[in-house]
């Protein structure tokens, strides 16, 4: 087995050397997606990034993508891309972590990047986005716009990414309205339009007049539109699903990052790194601020600018935990490592965190 792998690596290296000589001026960049590019959600946004990259570099790069790749079968996909002369390969799902790492070791001459993972190698980087920064702004907007002082929050699974989103949302809302209330419904699914719609209905019936979501479909937003309340878009600009209800969307934006990485490979400055970029890096983008008074829009734009400049840090102390104990001390900022593993609510969240 080992000999076979070695042999395959030698063959692949030889093939790569050949293709490198031929395509000196054209960098081949590969992408592996977990879902279909037509999902109008996560994989769709990555593919938008790929298209942006292609447009930026024109005929200087050649991009390839493999969609709908099952996570446990992804090793072949990475090998195939590496063998066919791709010099930079992006794996966009958490579950690609180990297969991609394995292939990276086999192809030391190829640069690999893995989204949302945590394992690094000399030729394997990781990258992810600070979506909680956008949720802080959404919290501020919700607290200004809501007449009942209550947001309904549709949550998927109690993982740090979702919990940090809820906390950031409430920290933003509490800055505007200290008594702001949040009602949380866990639907235990990333994507179930029917259930998400029912959750939105339940929250609206219980008096929430702004709906926020950490699930992937446009169903909650459509329910908000129907009921005449407000909502936020997820992953992409969902304004056309709810032109009257939408306040803004929290958009994934991978294009600029992909352009930067390709540039680094072309210049020979690429190094293995762990990137966690937010609004400042352009990896998280706020959709147009709509359906809100001018002063609220101005506030949101100001906060966005302040987060970008570093003047506002979302998880800056003092922050109290739900039970009143100290979460972050005054003058301190929660370290990234803690945000990535966040498993407690801030004070004022009236929900029992499923453990």
């Amino acid at each position: 087995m080992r000999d076979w792998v070695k042999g395959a690596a030698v063959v692949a290296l030889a093939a790569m050397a050949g293709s490198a000589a031929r395509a000196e001026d054209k960098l081949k960049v590969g992408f592996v997606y977990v879902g279909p590019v037509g999902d109008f959600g996560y994989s769709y946004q990555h593919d938008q990034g790929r298209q942006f990259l292609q447009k930026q570099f024109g005929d200087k790069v050649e991009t390839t993508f493999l969609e709908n790749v099952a996570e446990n079968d992804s090793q072949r996909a990475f090998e195939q891309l590496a063998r066919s002369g791709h010099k930079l390969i992006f794996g966009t799902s958490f579950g690609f972590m180990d297969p991609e790492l394995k292939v990276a070791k086999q192809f030391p001459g190829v640069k690999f990047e893995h989204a949302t993972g945590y394992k690094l190698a000399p030729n394997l980087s990781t990258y992810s986005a600070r979506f909680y920064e956008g949720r802080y702004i959404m919290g501020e907007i919700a607290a200004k716009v809501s007449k009942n002082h209550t947001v309904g929050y549709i949550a998927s699974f109690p993982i740090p990414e979702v919990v940090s989103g809820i906390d950031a949302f409430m920290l933003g809302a509490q800055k505007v309205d200290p008594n702001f209330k949040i009602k949380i419904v866990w639907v235990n699914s990333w994507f179930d339009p029917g259930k998400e719609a029912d959750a939105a209905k339940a929250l609206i019936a219980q008096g929430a007049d702004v709906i926020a979501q950490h699930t992937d479909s446009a169903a909650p937003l459509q329910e908000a539109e129907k009921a005449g309340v407000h909502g936020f878009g997820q992953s992409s600009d969902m304004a056309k699903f709810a032109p009257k209800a939408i306040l803004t969307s929290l958009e994934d934006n991978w294009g600029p990052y992909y352009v930067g990485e390709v540039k680094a490979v072309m210049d020979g400055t690429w190094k293995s790194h762990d990137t966690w970029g937010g609004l400042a890096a352009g990896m998280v983008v706020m959709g147009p601020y709509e359906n809100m008074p001018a002063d609220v829009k101005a506030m949101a734009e100001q906060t966005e600018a302040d987060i970008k400049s570093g003047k506002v840090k979302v998880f800056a102390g003092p922050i109290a935990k739900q039970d009143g104990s100290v979460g972050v001390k005054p003058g301190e900022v929660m370290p990234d490592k803690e945000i990535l593993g966040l498993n407690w609510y801030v004070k004022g969240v009236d929900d029992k965190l499923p453990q």
Partner: protein
Amino acid sequence: MNGEMAQLILVTVVTAATPLFLAALGELVAERSGVLNLGVEGMMVMGAAGGFAAAYVTGSTLVGALAGIALGALMALLFALLTVVFAVSQVASGLALTIFGLGLSGLVGSGFVGLKRDPAPHLSIPGLTDLPGVGRLVFGEDYFVYAALALAVLVSFVLGRTRAGLVLRAVGDNHGSAHALGVPVRRVRILAVLFGGACAGLGGAYLSLAYTPFWSPEMTAGRGWIALALVVFASWRPWRALGGAVLFGGATVLQLHAQAFGIGLPGQFMSAIPYLATVLALVLLSLRRRAGSVAPAMLGTAFVPDR
């Protein structure tokens, strides 16, 4: 909780139960003829994709619903060809049908992702629909709901009171004897499977036309599998399937409302309640009457006439 709130919750329950019931009713008929079709999810999702696509292009919800029915039936035809005509394993073919449907629906619907329609029209009878407390629940549902109820009456009547129903049940209980009596076993089974596919397709179209009026890949999110379980839960009786769908939909919706109300229980537990309620109901049913089940004896067994 006031009356209007109760009505609002019940209307939501009806919406959640309808697609489950439609798919379960169709599968129930197929299974009563002795064919186990595990491809409900695949037929449903094809109905959702095709239904939305047709409704979007023509602007007509009715055309969308008919397209959903047609696509569901077309998928079922493929399944019938494999399992009834060629006597291939029903379990393997059904699983393949689900996987095939999930993939093909993505292709059919690929041009329609990110588009939306207005929800399917609701019944509106001046005077009745505005009745406080019950008006919207009884007289203000969308047309799919009334169609589903009519289908329940029809299926229950045909299965229990007509010769056609007797023949169907005979085929499901003992295809050898039915064949000896001159019943065209395979034709009956093909028709039953087609009916099942049509119902699943209609249930899928309900999702993309009335429940959440847009198309998104895999939007059925496992409802086909729940429908399959409901058939067993209902012990192959149409009205019990209706009860099961309402119970399951009701428990799902109520736990969401309970969470929004702030009942203080962990979300995972709340999400498990519909399943717990179903298990509990099953236990109670089996305690009450042992001989309540009419499981078709030939379920899952292929019929080869020359053997």
